[in-house]
């Protein structure tokens, strides 16, 4: 089955416009558009053109190496892979219940990760579009422009991220690619000095996160009708929830809702995720297309991440974030809007800041009981709510302790079809029949950025990646060519 605008009937007669690479996202992807001579859109695809091969080259490696190795998938949210792998290997080493110290250190690490990743995305990557407009001057529409026009906002964004990185450093040993989480627990707890150092700024982070939620809300509601409709599509959603239905970003059961909010499954044991999730492949992308088994590939695709999580849970277990959630859910059109992701993301950042502050008062963080083991198993599944959505790690380990099979379904993969739907909707809404301009192409990127996709790469661009778009007539003659140089300046050939 092919979705509307996924595959043109006669692509050979259409001209191709490519956004390559998509900028201000993590990693490398491209968008292709096929247009006819009237600029009518016939095909829109988000291609993930990286091939990483982690699932293959982890095979044959000792299992205890996995949490450290697979986190190299990413330089932005390696903690997510570090923890998802550790949770899977907890099952391998028979650690059915971690010590309180180990679980709380891991949670603290994870909330630090959520805080820094969400701050990075909102302030560094997304805010230029939101503050200046989608087709604002490209020379200004970047983080440097934000620093110039809104220095206080930019500064808080930088410091929020820095604080999250400090939480990670103290729990994992390094700001990026640490080793703190190991199968069955953690390798360090927090000293009294480390806790005190983090607590010193914890309340400030909560306050700044509240301001960020207010800013995200204001940016959405000041043009609510447009923002609600931009790239909007109906979709099922999935996330982990706690046993009482609360948001839990570290552990829980899988909950999926249909596009009307009805429960499809709830508190599903993720160690058998394959009973409810299947992965499809398409010939034009290295990224798979997961779908809900019960609904099939045509209608079973879903979205994950902040928007799905905030709407999916019954409440958020920290008071300030929960209050903001109530406001968000009551705002007309926000909970299903592609641009609602930003608002939901800031609510989660507030939840992370509150959780960090609460955890830092917990003496278990200083405990010395760090690791447990139990009956050895040959298969382990770890699931965590990474900043960008549900992250699944699944390993098989032989009797010699070697990994024999690995399957990773990363957050952005779950959102693959959803992102394609979003950009097709934007193409219908804004590009169809129009002469292509840089500003219009940026509308496509704005829709992709809302998902904060991590295209499995440790590098990221800041809106300054060189870009060349060529429009070719059906006989192969170039009829239009636009360039964006490394300084973000656009020109026409």
């Amino acid at each position, binding site marked *: 089955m092919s979705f509307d605008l996924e595959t043109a009937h006669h692509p050979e007669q259409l001209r191709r416009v490519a956004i390559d690479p998509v900028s201000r996202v993590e990693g490398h992807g491209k968008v292709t558009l096929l247009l006819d001579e009237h600029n009518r859109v016939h095909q829109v695809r988000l291609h993930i053109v990286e091939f990483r091969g982690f699932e293959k080259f982890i095979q*044959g490696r000792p299992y*205890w*190496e996995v949490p450290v190795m697979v986190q190299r998938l990413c330089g932005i949210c390696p903690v997510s892979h570090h923890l998802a792998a550790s949770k899977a290997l907890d099952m391998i080493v028979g650690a059915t219940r971690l010590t309180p110290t180990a679980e709380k250190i891991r949670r603290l690490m994870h909330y630090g990760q959520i805080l820094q990743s969400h701050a990075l995305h909102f302030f560094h990557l997304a805010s230029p579009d939101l503050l200046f407009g989608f087709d604002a001057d490209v020379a200004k529409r970047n983080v440097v422009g934000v620093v110039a026009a809104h220095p206080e906002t930019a500064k808080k964004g930088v410091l929020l991220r820095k604080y999250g990185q400090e939480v990670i450093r103290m729990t994992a040993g390094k700001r990026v690619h640490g080793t*703190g989480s190991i199968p069955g627990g953690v390798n*360090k707890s927090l000293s009294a000095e480390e806790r005190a150092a983090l607590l010193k700024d914890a309340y400030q982070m909560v306050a700044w996160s509240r301001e960020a939620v207010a800013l995200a809300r204001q940016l959405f509601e000041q043009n609510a009708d447009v923002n609600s409709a931009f790239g909007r599509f109906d979709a099922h959603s999935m996330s982990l929830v706690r046993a009482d239905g609360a948001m839990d970003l570290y552990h829980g059961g899988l909950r999926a809702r249909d596009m009307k909010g009805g429960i499809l499954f709830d508190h599903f044991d993720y160690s058998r995720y394959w009973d409810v999730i299947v992965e499809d492949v398409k010939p034009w992308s290295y990224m798979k297309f997961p779908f809900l088994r019960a609904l099939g590939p045509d209608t079973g695709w879903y979205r994950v991440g902040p928007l799905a999580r905030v709407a999916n849970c019954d409440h958020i277990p920290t008071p300030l974030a929960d209050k903001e959630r109530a406001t968000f859910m009551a705002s007309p059109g926000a909970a299903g809007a592609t641009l609602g992701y930003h608002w939901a993301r800031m609510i989660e950042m507030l939840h992370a800041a509150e959780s960090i502050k609460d955890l830092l008062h917990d003496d278990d963080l200083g405990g010395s009981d760090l*690791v447990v083991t139990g009956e050895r198993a040959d298969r382990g599944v770890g699931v965590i709510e990474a900043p960008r959505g549900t992250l699944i790690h699944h390993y098989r380990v032989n009797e010699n302790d070697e990994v024999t099979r690995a399957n990773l379904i990363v957050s952005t993969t779950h959102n693959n079809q959803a992102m394609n739907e979003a950009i097709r909707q934007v193409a219908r809404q804004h590009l169809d029949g129009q002469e292509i301009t840089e500003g219009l192409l940026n509308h496509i990127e704005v829709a992709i950025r809302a998902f904060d996709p991590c295209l499995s790469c440790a590098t990221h661009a800041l809106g300054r990646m060189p870009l060349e778009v060529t429009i070719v007539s059906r006989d192969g003659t170039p009829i239009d060519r636009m360039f964006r140089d490394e300084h973000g300046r656009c020109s026409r050939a």
Partner: protein
Amino acid sequence: MSEQTFTLDGQEIPFATGQSVMQAALSAGVFIPHLCYHPEFRPHGSCKLCTVKINGRPATSCTTPAAAGLEVESDTQEILDKRRTLLQMLLVEGNHFCPSCEKSGHCKLQALGYELGVMTPHFNHFYPDRPVDASHPDVLLDFNRCILCELCIRASAEVDGKNVFALAGRGIGKHLIVNAESGKLGDTDFALTDKAAQVCPVGVILAKRQGFAVPIGQRRFDAAPISAHVDEFRPVAPQAGGKP
């Protein structure tokens, strides 16, 4: 009788009869970079990292007997450049992926890389295909990181009396093997308590299920560079230097 000395980079180094230049330097608290030297074993002279200039001629300090009046150069630009090159060649000859290696922070090869300022591998990687031997219940062999120092061979033969390891092949094809019909460590009487399990300077011989248990900041070479660990390399007992 007056104390015998030689000079090392202009510093007077006393020595006892039978000591090598390396042993005398380490005893005096002066670090000379090395990989295949171990204070408990006869010197080997294969890694060449401890090469110094003695009276103007290159020589491995671990195998050259100390003698009165020698003029030894070690910490010179020329010698440091050669040591860096040696390390770079070792790093590309095997598969040394420090970011995911559990020996990171404990590894002498890595520590010497930091010590000598190896910023890039410089040469093209060989990317050899070296399968892991995980057949032993307690010990993992990751041949990817072997630098052919033969310390495990010497320890297994001389201390453990087991002859578990050997080198096979010649030239660039030389590699570490396990003395078992199957070639697997699991089919030997090797034990985690063997001396051979304790001496690997890199990440080849590893206790299973222990990786990354020591947090960053508390690993062997986290707090101070390898040259500050000179006390760990001092000769443990009078021993014969000279021929390997």
